[in-house]
């Protein structure tokens, strides 16, 4: 399945950027949690090793195989998600955890890969220059199903992450004006229904405090305010590794997960923030560049959707922790602590590497 020609064409730079960003994450996780116990940094290293294994597994098998089994993966993911909703135990407010052996995982993270593959398969078979209505609707349904189930867990953050997959696919397929209008209508109606029937009070509160964080310093806005204080007080060069007072005094919520970037901002200042921006941007740029280095339509879609997913999560998170977006609980892939997220990201990037190195047809 893999030969030396493929290895020569493998994107080692992208793989290196992937590892580099993960290491940055481990360092930040260590600084955020070394005084609390729990060994999060070491667990993340363990997860990194596991994820790397999956990365190479993903790369080794021709991506056509992955596309081939996409419907089965998708069905399985959906089954597990629904099962979790019915039988799962509530962990920190949502039925999103699956406990297997010694490590727990969130199937909702892994489901992203399944959706990515099935959408790629769907769109690779569609060859018109612009997506038509029925086709768009089918795509919306495929992405929307797991999204709805996850939103019911309730885990809105993760549910949101299916949006860039769908949007990525539709953008690539060429959204026409009617589609955009349809999207707007769905968004407005969905937003209205969601606000009135589905959003829990704490979620509404988050949206409301986004508008004015100073208004409710003890509520959801409190976290954003504390996060802004942490980042702002980092200044140009920061307070130093393991010396962030906001973080140490536990003013920062979810320091090793959703607010990991605030730890970076506080301890390494704007210099650190800018460096990580550059590092992450290089990773994403490399991934976007790969969209043009594919042999077929399906490859382009997979690469583009994977790029969109990482970009979306990164931007949402860094804008959320400074109060530009509501606190939705979306972690930064690679930087935030979390095994399932790391695994998903490695598999997604693995697919990109896979596609890129098999871009030439050997006839």
């Amino acid at each position: 399945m893999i030969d030396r020609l493929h290895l020569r064409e493998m994107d080692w730079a992208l793989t290196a950027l992937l590892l580099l960003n993960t290491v940055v994450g481990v360092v930040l996780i260590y600084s955020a949690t070394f005084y609390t116990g729990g060994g999060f940094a070491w667990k993340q290293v363990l997860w990194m090793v596991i994820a790397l294994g999956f990365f190479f597994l993903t790369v080794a098998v021709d991506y056509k195989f992955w596309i081939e089994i996409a419907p089965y993966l998708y069905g399985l993911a959906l089954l597990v998600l629904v099962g979790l909703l019915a039988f799962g135990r509530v962990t920190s407010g949502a039925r999103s955890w699956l406990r297997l052996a010694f490590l727990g995982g969130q199937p909702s993270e892994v489901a992203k890969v399944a959706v990515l593959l099935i959408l790629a398969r769907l769109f690779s078979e569609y060859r018109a220059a612009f997506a038509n209505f029925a086709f768009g609707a089918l795509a919306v349904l495929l992405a929307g199903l797991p999204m709805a189930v996850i939103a019911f867990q309730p885990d809105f953050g993760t549910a949101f992450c299916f949006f860039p997959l769908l949007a990525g696919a539709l953008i690539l397929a060429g959204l026409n004006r009617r589609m955009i209008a349809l999207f707007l209508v769905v968004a407005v109606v969905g937003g209205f229904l969601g606000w009135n029937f589905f959003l829990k009070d704490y979620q509404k509160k988050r949206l409301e405090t986004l508008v004015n964080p100073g208004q409710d310093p003890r509520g959801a806005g409190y976290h954003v305010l504390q996060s802004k204080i942490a980042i702002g007080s980092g200044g140009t060069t920061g307070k130093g590794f393991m010396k962030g007072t906001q973080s140490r005094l536990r003013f920062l919520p979810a320091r090793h997960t959703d607010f990991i970037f605030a730890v970076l901002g506080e301890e390494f200042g704007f210099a650190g923030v800018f460096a990580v921006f550059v590092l992450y941007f290089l990773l994403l740029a490399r991934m976007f560049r790969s969209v043009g280095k594919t042999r077929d339509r399906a490859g382009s879609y997979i690469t583009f959707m994977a790029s969109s997913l990482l970009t979306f999560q990164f931007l949402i998170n860094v804008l959320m922790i400074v109060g530009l977006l509501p606190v939705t609980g979306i972690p930064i892939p690679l930087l935030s602590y979390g095994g399932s997220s790391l695994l998903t990201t490695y598999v997604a990037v693995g697919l990109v590497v896979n596609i890129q190195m098999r871009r030439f047809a050997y006839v």
Partner: protein
Amino acid sequence: MKDSPIYEDLSLLHRRALWVFRVVALLFLAAALFYWKIQILDYRKYFALAEANRIRESVIPSPRGVLTDRGGAVVLADNQASFKASFIRENAKDFDASVRAAAALLEIDESVIRERIEKYKSLPAFRPIVVKDKLTLEEVSRIEGRRNELPELVIETEPRRNYPFGSLAAHILGYMQEVTPEELRSGFRDRRLGDMVGKTGIEAAYETRLAGVDGTLLEVVDSQGRIREEIQRIEPRPRPKLALTVDYDLQAKAEELLAGREGAVVVLDPRNGEILVLASSPTYDPNRFINRFTPEEWQGLIANPDNPLLDRAIQGLYSPGSIFKPTMALAGLETGTITAGTSFFCGGSALFYDRPFRCWLEGGHGNLALSDAIKNSCNIYFYNVGNRLSVDTIARYAEMLGLGGMTGIEIPGEKAGLVPTSAWKKETTGQPWYPGETISVAIGQGPLQATPLQIAVMTAALANRGRRIRPHFTSEANVAAPSSGPLGLVPRETFETIVGGMWRSVNDGGTGQGARIEGFDICGKTGSTQTIGRETAERLAASGRSVKTHSWFTGFAPRDDPRIVVTVLIEFGGMGGATAAPVAGQIFGLSKAKHDR
């Protein structure tokens, strides 16, 4: 690679991806710019915030609504600034050492502080816990002087409920206590642990009307607990004052007359049900509740055999005794059993069902008609009336006058009393009602029980010639009178007959003459109720001993246009005419004097 047989043409897709990538690059730039703004441009602001971090929210307690008497001039309950010392656990570096230092500074036992902190340990650590209140100014300055060494001990001020006249009207106003965790879970959701809420009386009945809306204060406090900046202050919103219907002068007079005895006085306006006086003795000082009792003080109060916390006016259950006789007269006249002219002979005692029943006057009253029977409170006359009625008929008329049911007063804890019926007896004892028992009920004894307030309300119905009222303390209460029902259909002559007897009781040498006030047409009825069984009383009397009876007087004035009802009960006061009537007389007198002024 265009038109390659191997490769698809994906250039359109690539162009779209490139376009998206450009947008992403712009977004990265924008995000970086924003970080640059807060980290470089606003650095000083956020650095200062981080240094002086800890946004603390504290409560500015609202003063409680002021209570006044009916004129609005006499303040019965207001608020006083009070200093209290509170302990902030978060600020204590060494908890045990802090408690020791605080105890020494406050001159209280360490265990007191520990107990208080233990009680509120569920509160967040930055929340101050009151360890001592009612600090003197000297204590305040002593604590402030040690501010830097002992940042965990802080002084807080808050408005505290204050009752300027101490125990005056205590049973009307009620008392306040700290809200309990159970109450917090049920009714008082907007309150917090440590808050005081009304537990009895007006304070409880009008809790939501009196409790203002607390304000909040958001401050940035540094790690030493020193206030650095005020972010936001929402002033508390106190509620407007509440004028009660209580007449301060009459209330004070009634309490003065009751001092040293156990009993109750109720004065109300029969025209509208406004309560002018509601006094119960012995009483207590509600201010003591505000200052947080020591456990000994509390034990002393609740273990007192005279039970000062009991509001005898609404919770004390007494046999009405002879003040029940007007009810009997009403029943007799309305059923046609007797007329105003019906006479019976009183020889001092009479046999009913083979048992001797005695009149209070040895030797008897001789032959007398209804008016004289009421005036002289003749037992034999009413035994005869009762003997001709069933207990259920008597009960119907008693209930028409409001006995055996709540009066609907707004303060909590009212007792309903008891009007016996044959069904009631069957239900409680399984025994049928024996006609002999009706004889005792005829003079207000037996199982009959009523509160002084019920007697006052009954008297008001007689004074109003059949129109019932609902007693109340404020115009904000439910003041709608209960339906007078069949009582409203009773002809006026019937009432005039009964009222006539009551007038003569006070003004024509009857048992109530002790209440007589010159120029004030008082109508009244006395009562002396046995507090022990008839056999016991006779046995004691045979050996020359006696237990004093409860002493009742209830009446109204003036006869033809009643504006005041006075009901007096003195426990173990002896004969109603000798003890309760003169007390009522003094209250009538003061009322008349105030009216004429």
